[in-house]
């Protein structure tokens, strides 16, 4: 699965962006990259920051090892 990776500047600009009850929230992958799913690119709730989202790097998702 492909996800979007943010560098620290992109993360700080986008993290927590909210449109009503629709919010952007990055998580960390196994390599401690800030990542978010690609579906944010087509969500009209995030149209205000779509250009910035489109600038994020596409990488393959490496989930953190699951804890129990």
């Amino acid at each position, binding site marked *: 699965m492909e996800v979007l990776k943010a560098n620290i500047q992109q993360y700080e600009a986008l993290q927590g962006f909210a449109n009503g009850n629709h919010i952007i929230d990055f998580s*960390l992958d196994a390599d401690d990259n800030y990542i978010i*799913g690609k*579906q944010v690119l087509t969500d009209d709730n995030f149209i205000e920051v779509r250009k910035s989202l489109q600038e994020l790097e596409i990488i393959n998702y490496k*989930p953190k090892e699951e804890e129990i």
Partner: protein
Amino acid sequence: MRLGLGLGLCGKRFSRKKFDSDYQAVLDFATSEGDTLPSANQQILQNQVVLSLKDKGLWNKKDAFGLFATDGNVDFALICWKRLIKMTAFNSPSFTTNGGIDGGGTAYIDTKFKSATDAVNYLLNDAGCSVNVGTTTPSGDVIVGNIERNDGGIRIKQKSNADSELNSFSFPTTTDYQNGGNLHIDRINSTQVVLKGEDGIETVTSNSTTLASNPALIFRLGGGSYGNGNIKTFSARSSFTDQEKNDYNTIINTYLNAI
């Protein structure tokens, strides 16, 4: 003249009684939020859900209830009917008209239900959660979780050899919920949790520990586990008897089959 007045009053009286007051409150809240309401026909069906839950004594057992399968918009779908608040959609979960909400990627929903502070009926040793979900692949995973694992939250996984939790540390289960439908997890006392899906029932020994100070999340568990499934309903409540679960299933299935 008198006849005309009488008919007019009669008509007003009927219009006031159109919906149950709790369902009307949902519609009024949605209107105040600017949400797209369900169609007129679906409003009748949703009103019947509330009436049926009340008739079976289930409405007053709930602390949270969301009905995501609707022909209203996604913002209507995110209303908690018991608390009249909006659940929060993180990272664009996918909404399909009448199909509910899908996870995928890093999308999840914050129900804003923290059992340690928000619960009235959901108690440490008398608690439950019901969801209606679609079928999924064996890799389908988290349906309900918390940001902190083993912190007394709700954990439901749609997965072979899954682990679960309810006001406790996690415990292994054999219930995989792979057939979807109505899934229930109930803590019936301080030492036992009952899991019931469409294809079986399992009682697990698990000591209760604490209620959760973090909200129940749909499609997310811990820092990095996300679910790819589909959800149509969510509720947090006091525990159900087996008959109450069957009654609940009938009410929800009747609605879902009608939309």
